[in-house]
């Protein structure tokens, strides 16, 4: 299976249009200008591909840290579980009005 870091950076580049040279393990969503809406979309895409429940990425984490966390979740055997994003992840991207 494609390593999670590679999958995540591929989506950030191809789907969200982040320039590839900015995609380094120490980059953060904030620095890449991936806002809360895009983060929820990214989580939706990752959950769909990995068949795992991810929830909201920790604020300020780097791409390397987020990928490592997802690898741990996958390894922990949540594979096949019904993907279920926590309500607060959606709320953070929700319209303000």
């Amino acid at each position, binding site marked *: 299976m494609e390593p999670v870091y590679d999958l995540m950076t591929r989506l950030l580049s*191809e*789907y*969200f*249009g*982040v320039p590839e040279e900015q995609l380094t393990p120490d980059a953060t969503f904030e620095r890449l*200008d991936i806002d809360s*809406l*895009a983060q*929820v*979309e990214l989580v*939706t895409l990752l*959950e*769909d591909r990995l068949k795992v429940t991810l929830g909201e990425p920790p604020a300020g984490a780097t791409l390397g840290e987020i990928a490592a966390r997802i690898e741990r979740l996958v390894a922990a055997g949540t594979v096949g579980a*019904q*993907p*279920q*994003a926590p309500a607060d992840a*959606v709320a953070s*991207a929700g*319209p303000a009005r």
Partner: protein
Amino acid sequence: MSEREVAVTGIGMVTPPGLGREATWDGLCAGEGLGAFDEDLAGLPVDFSCRVPGFDGNALLGRRITWRNDRFIHLAMVAAREAVADAALDPAVWDAPRVAIVIGTASNGGDRWPQEYRNLDEGRVEAISPTALLRSLPNMVAGEVSKDLRALGPCLTTSTACASGATAVGTARDLLRAGACDIAIAGGTDSARVPMGSAAFYRMQALSRRCHDPAGASRPFDADRDGFVLSEGAAMLILERPLHARARGARVRGYLSGYGASSDGYHATRPDPEGAGARRAVEAALADARAELAEVHHVNAHGTSTPLNDEVEAAMLSAVFRTPPPVTSLKGVIGHSLGAAGAVDAACTVLSLERQLIPPTANLDRLDDGMDLDVVTKIARRHRMEGALSNSFGFGGQNAVLFFRAA
């Protein structure tokens, strides 16, 4: 030119003939129907449409923007950027709170809805994209164009079915007249050539079923017409009060002198058989412009190629004008782009006045019995024009007519 009028200082278009105002104009003047088999509609009873060939919003706008919105928004953004550039305006320095956005859309399209309904049906609610609504809601096209161009004044979407684009232009004119803005970006957009669009309009018996001859399917005013052809596109106009345009030395392509809106109040889909609603809109537009019938030298017709619309529109024109001036319908070439159509028609009416040239109505081989119209066919016609009408009539009996004068 009076201060009741507004100047058209920029035009941008994305239509089946191609990307940009001039590609659109050249394609319209070529007069060939652009209906063709559409692989997205394969297997449906009506499997053809007029599409914008090779339109790639991602390449033109960048995934940074396009990942979160549907094709009708991409089309509008590209057309709006072209219109702003054509008007020699710079969003980096303009007085942003004084720039309005009014965009008409009839159906948007809902590119992603089939996929999201499948997710819902399968109980996969968490797989539904958080962008499902914001990528497809009609208001979002105005919101996204506003963000893209940093236009921070009044910002709204108009929805009057096939008249939406014309209603947007008229509404923007009213905002300018009321002093609510100094510049308005107004137009229309739609991309309904999606499977459900074709299936639903087919069920409504609105579409041409000429699958053996898609290029000849859209034939406004022709005796053998049998419905409209689904199309897509966007057109945007930059409107300013003449004083504002003059003060910044803007090139004026034409003047919007009159706007008339009305409702048939008759039937959900069929036009009033007497054309009374359409006629009221024409007369209101001319009264608004304080123009006489004799000042109308050309009519850019709604002319959808449906049996009923064209019959009623032709009879209405003959009733209003003793001898109607030369008429054309752009839909023979580009099909019916629904919410964009009124804006494409408005933009091309301005270009006709500017260039003193009327694009032909494609596929008109035999004018239907009982129609007494001078329809321009086969080749573009040179014609002296100072004023021209642009007609738009929507399902639901919603009508919008614009009267333009040459600059």
